[in-house]
């Protein structure tokens, strides 16, 4: 089919234009450069603002906490009494409870979250099912903490109570099961916390796993790896920074979770390793006492808040150090 000459030239002309990229591959105009500078500046400002924001928060809270910090000093961290009338305050049980519940949630949530992520990205399911599952799991992030608390009280605790009683009777000599479950306690709290961080860990891990170039997987298969060898030795390490980020976000969420834990952890100043004993966390302590706190109590609660921020900081520090060590090792092996 012969086109008229002019049209043919026009057609070829545009193709030539596209081929040589005459309209796109020109050096940037001065407007482009200006826009570039503005954009760079903008991103710099916002990155800086992040630091400013956190500093502002720390200062604001620290400022309020200062009188209490002066008055109670480090004894606050080691004492276990919380007596408003006698003005004796100590948050060691709360620090313990926060760390214990969050670590449990991280371990369980990490295991299940990453399993779900692997299950949803490594071709175990048809794609349509994967999308549906993905949406359902992300939906769980939207459920208000209050609802999780109610579910915990009305469904979870009655379900695990018989199991807990049986375990306590037969294995009570193991420190983890040394008390009986009266209702709210560390285990229900940790389980609900796990479910709350699961969507976060799962969704972000899933993204990290999907972003691994298919070539890597194919190369592994080409070398004769089984499916799981490919996953464990090639895909997971490649996605490790993303997965680690997911775990850190999940852990952060667990540390700061307030409402659901306030309803399920038992709010008791018990310092116990038993999973069935009631406990308390810093966030729950804050949430439950702040509304009614007078000036003096407010300062003490802010001190507890400072401690919580310090714990988050410390955990992040350790996490980043661990990650740095791991990536150095990985890239070192590669070289």
């Amino acid at each position: 089919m012969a086109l008229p000459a002019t049209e043919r030239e026009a057609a070829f002309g545009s193709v030539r234009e596209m081929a040589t990229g005459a309209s796109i591959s020109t050096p940037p105009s001065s407007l482009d450069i200006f826009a570039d500078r503005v954009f760079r500046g903008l991103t710099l400002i916002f990155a800086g603002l992040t630091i400013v924001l956190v500093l502002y928060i720390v200062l604001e809270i620290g400022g309020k906490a200062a009188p209490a910090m002066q008055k109670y000093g480090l004894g606050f961290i080691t004492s276990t009494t919380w007596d408003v009338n006698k003005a004796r305050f100590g948050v060691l049980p709360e620090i313990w409870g926060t760390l214990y519940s969050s670590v449990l949630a991280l371990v369980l949530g990490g295991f299940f979250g990453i399993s779900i992520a692997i299950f949803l990205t490594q071709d175990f399911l048809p794609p349509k099912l994967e999308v549906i599952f993905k949406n359902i799991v992300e939906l769980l992030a939207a459920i208000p903490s209050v609802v999780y608390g109610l579910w915990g009280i009305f469904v979870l605790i009655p379900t695990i109570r018989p199991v807990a009683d049986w375990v306590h009777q037969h294995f009570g000599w193991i420190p983890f099961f040394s008390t009986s479950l009266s209702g709210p306690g560390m285990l229900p709290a940790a389980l609900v916390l796990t479910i709350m961080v699961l969507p976060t860990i799962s969704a972000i891990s899933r993204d990290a796993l999907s972003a691994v170039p298919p070539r890597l997987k194919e190369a592994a298969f080409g070398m004769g790896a089984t499916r799981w060898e490919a996953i464990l030795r090639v895909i997971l390490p490649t996605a490790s920074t993303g997965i680690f980020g997911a775990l850190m976000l999940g852990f952060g969420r667990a540390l700061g979770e307030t409402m659901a834990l306030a309803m399920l952890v038992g709010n008791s100043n018990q310092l116990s390793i038993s999973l069935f004993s009631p406990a308390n966390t810093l966030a729950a302590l804050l949430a439950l006492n702040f509304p009614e706190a007078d000036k003096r109590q407010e300062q003490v609660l802010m001190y507890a808040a400072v401690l919580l921020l310090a714990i988050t900081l410390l955990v992040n520090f350790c996490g980043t150090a661990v990650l740095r060590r791991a990536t150095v090792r990985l890239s070192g092996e590669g070289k």
Partner: protein
Amino acid sequence: MKVGPVRCLWLLLILCGLLSTSLGWAGESVRLKGSGASFPFPLYGLWFKESGKVNRNVIIAYQATGSGAGIKDFVNKTVDFAASDAAMTDEEMAAVEGGVQLLPMTAGSIVLAYNLPDGPKELKLSREAYTKIFLGQVTKWNDPVIAQANPDAKMPETGITVVRRADSSGTTFVFTQHLGAISEAWKNGPGTGTTVNWPSSDKFIASPKNDGVAATIKQTPGAIGYIEYGFAELGKLPMALVENKAGKFVKPSLESGQAALAGVDLPPDLRAWVPDPSGEEAYPIVTYTWMVFHKKYDDPKKAETIRNVVKYALTDGQRVSGKMGYIPLPDKVVQVVSRALDNIQ
């Protein structure tokens, strides 16, 4: 990837909102904001809505944040009025410029709800029994101290789980005040307060808010805890008959609550506590709850609205309160409060 259509819509909405707020102020309607105690929250909600039907242009927003938070807001002037189960202390009142008018609006009783499927239908608890339970000294339901007052019943051997409030609350304040009034050991031990240092035991668990405690009691066999009467009544939780000052075992009810309030005269600043009422039929654990107003408002319309709403609350409002589990104010109290209303200008 620029701003999508959904985002544009939000932007537009926000801009319109900001624009119209800067352009126009409220038309004719008077808006009042309040925050504070959660105990009277359902009742106040009903009152404000009803009075809104009568006075068309009145919009009152009240949120339960806790008595302490309400007082804080009131002092910070972020709300027009507050509600508190613990009235106000002298220093709090001094911190408010222009003066404070406290008005008791209703009252309630605190009951000991329990969960004992194999226990007696009407559990009687003597003073010694319930004090020792909450001190953690009595730990089993078949303890002789409890069995003494319930000779006809077979008490099961279950352990006692004490459910207390996890959050600071006026309910705890009133309950511990009562315990402090009847027991030296309690006064020198945990003492009185919105939060106290409860005995250290893994059989003492805590739940937030009245409904949390009620739910925990319901779910835990062998549990006992203190909650507002309305919650136990409407949640159909068994309530213990408590021994009062006169030695009688009284069942919590409207009548026994009113009998407790009847014996108390209100002082001029309208702050009265009833830690241990002396009437024969009096239920021993009762409390007023107050609304806190400024003596002087910048907007006379606000003051007028407040007076109208309080008048409604003191007359028609009291009729509803009984149904909801609150104790209607005795007549002489209503008179005193109506007179004090004139102080709000």
